[in-house]
């Protein structure tokens, strides 16, 4: 293809006018005649047996039309591991777990009736932290774990709280570690956080008298919702129709299946009536899903030349009460455990642990922000302890062409270049080791890598068809929830067909009865997967147009091209506008050939191989990698511990920039979401009640305009992805992956305080400054360093919050540091 006409251009968002005028209809805006309103009865216990659920009083409230309970709908749901029922059957597993639901004529009547549902509980001991969950004799969150339906690439351990365990064994870790001159070990913590989409979860459903179930939902994955609803209620796919109107943000929280089974259950009891379930903001915080917590223990063995030879990564994921989706975060963290680095000898364990907390699930980054919080601080700490410039240390150890990942995949020249991203952000913020320094000003860096974490056969398909006026209609089922997919799909279609943008109409907002199949809008996969499908469908469309035009013009097909809305024959200069071909071509005598022009095509990644279950090795575990790096400048106030982010630099190897304005938007947005988690966000779960104490936007702050750093510098490397559309690869999630770790590294550089537990609050920085003994600068010393932790047994070690190790538990981390640095 010659120089692209549309790819790389600032094409305005094709759904922009409807969004700036208020015309866009979100699920939250839908209304239907005589629509009923639902309210969910939620558990007031973190863990309890459910002995009885009585709805008689609720049903007597005027306006109440139906209740639904686990006794009536004892059906399992979940995407990878079906460990959840729609409503509690025998037990509740977190504060907020759904027990029953009510549908009524008004939201007020539904709420009043829900409060009158009588539930008899027998409280059970609850666990909140991963180490509690791994103790022998720990209360089991899922005693039936061995009986749940599960995909083959997830390994729940029956009789324990472990919902998945991924092992990565590369090279000879123990042998290599023994030969290393320097060994470093640290433990890092990441709390549960919430997605906070501005539109909370909402769904409207009706089951009609003919048996058809229709659902409108604010979701990322209409076909997966349909498929899982069918599995849950044992319905044929033809009887379930899922439509996704405009979506007000998702960030992973609306991936897979969510509240839809609750509202469908109610709809089945009120046949013919639409039922609306809208999750209010407080419930959104604890009763939908959250990002999983992480306790990560890393051991690095480094040779005299500053090359990491042996790397251990031990991840304990706090999956909360359900792991239906989170088990795949655990898996992704396993095969990506080495981050953007080449480690010759690796011992990785990624272990998902159930607790009685809100349920973990997908969240922008899919585990990568969390593991990078650990790994990118570890690399920085190792570099500094070794006296090596952290930028130089990263370049010495990072992945690149010819180097092998933790699963043994050897990267090639098309895999993306983290080294170029590192170098670029170092230039953008001038991170030369001899740069001039100001007290309490500092800068830090972190790298990022992520692959699409999805089943090997996750696919996208599209339909292209011409309308009577020659406009090309592009039917997609990926969701544009802000990332710009509709615009990107339009750009690829316009590029392939050489059409002006006004000749393209993207039909998103998919309807599973009418739209082409798409697995899910997750994994930063849509530009790449849908983009490829659009290009393939365009080739088929051209074949149809050229066949007609060749007859019409009396020229060979091979000499035809598309040009600016026409099929042209360059040798003769003759052409036919596409409008003359859209519905078939009519000759002057009236006979007609062809017909309404339409084509369908799909894309599925090729050659993906499952991980070996014992070693985690695979030559191609995932479709692609996107690499990047960020650096931040901060200023710390030594009196208060407060700090300001002055400047951010971000650079990613995206293969090809498709739309500069929108990719900048992804980057700014990701940086700010990364700063939110890095600086202020944490779901606070009270013990022993399990109540979420900060379930409001008043108490759980997300960044506002006041938190935006004065300067965010953005750049991109373009190493084309071999199977990417015009070389493009995914970027949406990657933009927040390194931010929190880079922030922590910058704060250490500014004031010598090392924060191992996210988020970095002013209180923690101030405590670190005080612990240094003076408020002076103390570079090179970590406030909570465990690099000479000694025998790391119960109650001691680098991180007092993380470490109780019970006898007999083989999944808690075992220290490899004998006497610190050797």
């Amino acid at each position: 293809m010659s120089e692209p006409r549309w790819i790389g251009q600032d094409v305005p968002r094709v759904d922009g006018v409807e969004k700036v005028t208020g015309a866009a209809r979100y699920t939250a805006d839908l209304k239907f005649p005589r629509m009923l309103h639902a309210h969910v009865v939620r558990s007031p216990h973190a863990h309890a047996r459910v002995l009885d659920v009585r709805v008689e009083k609720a049903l007597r409230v005027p306006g109440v039309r139906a209740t639904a309970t686990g006794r009536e709908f004892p059906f399992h749901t979940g995407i990878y591991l079906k460990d959840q029922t729609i409503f509690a059957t025998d037990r509740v597993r977190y504060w907020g777990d759904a027990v029953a639901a009510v549908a009524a004529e008004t939201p007020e009547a539904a709420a009043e009736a829900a409060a009158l549902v009588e539930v008899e509980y027998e409280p059970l001991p609850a666990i909140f932290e991963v180490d509690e969950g791994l103790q022998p004799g720990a209360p089991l969150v899922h005693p039936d774990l061995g009986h749940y339906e599960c995909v083959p690439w997830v390994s729940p351990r029956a009789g324990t709280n472990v919902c998945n365990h991924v092992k990565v064994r590369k090279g000879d870790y123990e042998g290599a570690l023994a030969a290393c001159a320097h060994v470093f070990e640290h433990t890092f913590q990441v709390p549960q956080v919430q997605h906070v989409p501005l539109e909370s979860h909402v769904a409207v459903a009706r089951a009609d008298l003919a048996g058809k179930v229709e659902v409108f939902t604010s979701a990322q994955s209409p076909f997966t919702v349909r498929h899982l609803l069918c599995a849950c209620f044992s319905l044929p796919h033809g009887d379930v129709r899922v439509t996704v109107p405009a979506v007000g943000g998702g960030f992973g929280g609306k991936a897979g299946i969510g509240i839809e089974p609750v509202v469908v259950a109610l709809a089945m009891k009120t046949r013919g009536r639409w039922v609306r379930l809208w999750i209010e903001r407080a419930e959104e915080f604890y009763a939908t899903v959250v990002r999983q917590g992480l306790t990560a223990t890393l051991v690095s063995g480094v040779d005299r030349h500053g090359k990491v030879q042996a790397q251990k990564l031990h991840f304990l994921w706090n999956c909360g009460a359900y792991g239906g989706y989170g088990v795949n975060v655990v898996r992704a963290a396993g095969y990506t455990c080495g981050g953007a680095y080449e480690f010759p000898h690796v011992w990785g364990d990624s272990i998902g642990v159930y607790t009685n907390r809100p349920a973990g699930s997908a969240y922008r980054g899919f585990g990568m922000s969390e593991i990078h919080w650990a790994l990118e601080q570890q690399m920085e700490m190792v570099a500094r302890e070794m006296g090596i410039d952290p930028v130089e240390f990263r370049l010495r150890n990072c992945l690149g062409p010819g180097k092998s990942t933790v699963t043994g995949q050897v990267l090639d020249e098309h895999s993306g270049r983290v080294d170029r991203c590192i170098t670029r952000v170092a230039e953008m913020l001038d991170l030369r080791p001899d740069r001039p320094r100001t007290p309490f000003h500092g800068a830090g860096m972190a790298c990022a890598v992520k692959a699409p974490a999805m089943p090997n056969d996750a696919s996208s398909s599209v339909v292209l068809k011409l309308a009577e006026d020659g406009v090309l209609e592009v039917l997609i089922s990926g969701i544009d929830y802000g990332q710009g997919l509709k615009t990107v799909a339009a750009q690829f279609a316009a590029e392939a067909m050489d059409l002006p943008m006004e000749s393209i109409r993207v039909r998103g907002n998919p309807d599973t009865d009418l739209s082409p199949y798409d697995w899910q809008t997750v994994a930063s996969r849509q530009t790449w997967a849908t983009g490829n499908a659009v290009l393939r469908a365009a080739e088929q469309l051209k074949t149809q147009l050229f066949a007609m035009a060749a007859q019409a013009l009396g020229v060979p097909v091979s000499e035809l091209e598309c040009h600016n809305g026409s099929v042209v024959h360059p040798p003769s200069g003759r052409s036919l506008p596409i409008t003359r071909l859209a519905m078939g071509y009519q000759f002057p005598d009236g006979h007609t050939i062809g017909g309404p022009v339409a084509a369908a095509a799909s894309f599925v990644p090729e050659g993906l191989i499952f991980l070996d279950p014992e070693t985690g090795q695979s030559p191609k575990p995932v479709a692609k990698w996107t690499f990047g790096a960020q650096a931040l400048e901060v200023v710390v106030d030594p009196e208060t511990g407060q700090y300001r982010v002055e400047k951010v630099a971000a650079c990613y190897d995206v293969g090809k920039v498709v739309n500069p304005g929108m990719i900048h938007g992804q980057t700014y947005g990701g940086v700010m979401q990364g700063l939110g988690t890095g600086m202020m966000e944490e779901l606070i779960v009270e013990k022993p009640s399990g109540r979420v104490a900060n379930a409001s936007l008043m108490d759980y702050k997300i960044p506002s305009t006041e938190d935006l750093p004065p300067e965010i510098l953005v750049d991109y490397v373009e190493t084309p992805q071999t199977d990417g559309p015009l070389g493009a690869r995914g970027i949406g999630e990657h933009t927040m992956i390194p931010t929190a770790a880079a922030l922590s590294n910058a704060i250490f550089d500014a004031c010598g305080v090392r924060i191992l537990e996210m988020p970095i609050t002013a209180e923690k920085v101030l405590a670190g400054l005080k612990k240094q003994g003076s408020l002076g600068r103390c570079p090179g010393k970590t406030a909570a360093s465990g690099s000479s932790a000694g025998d790391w047994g119960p109650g001691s070690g680098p991180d007092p919050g993380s470490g109780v190790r019970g006898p007999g538990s083989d999944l808690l981390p075992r220290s490899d540091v004998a006497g610190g640095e050797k």
Partner: protein
Amino acid sequence: MNQTISLRVNGLPETHEVPANQTLLQFLRETLDLTGAKEGCNEGECGACLVLLDGRAVNACLTLAVEADGREVTTIEGLGHAGDLHPLQAAFLKHAAVQCGFCTPGMIIAALGLLRDNPDPSEEDVRWAMSGNLCRCTGYRQIIDAVQEAAAAMRGDPAPEAAP
């Protein structure tokens, strides 16, 4: 208990009987089907429900419908439409300041409220005026740029060449 209110919404007169405890947001969304103002938190923390009440931006979720009696309400639907966008709407598009779009109506109304009082705001002024409007998608940079460019356009300053 119901009460009759008469007000102007986007320039048109409206008279309705409303429950005394109904919020302005419920009235606009449910009675008038003006769904541009969004229900993000229902407690005045997110700004997605902002409307102008006599030219001042207010959280419609914290305002009772009866408080709007005899007053003038402007919602996002009262600004522009395809082919005739308000300068703020055009600037949001040009600067890619819209992603999921759920906060966008509130953002534009907040900016409009600011520009009525302060036609030439500094970046700090914009940040402060819009700090009650949460956006989880954009990171705010392009929104601030859009507001400043729209402010210039509304003042009649020559437009800069291109968005960043």
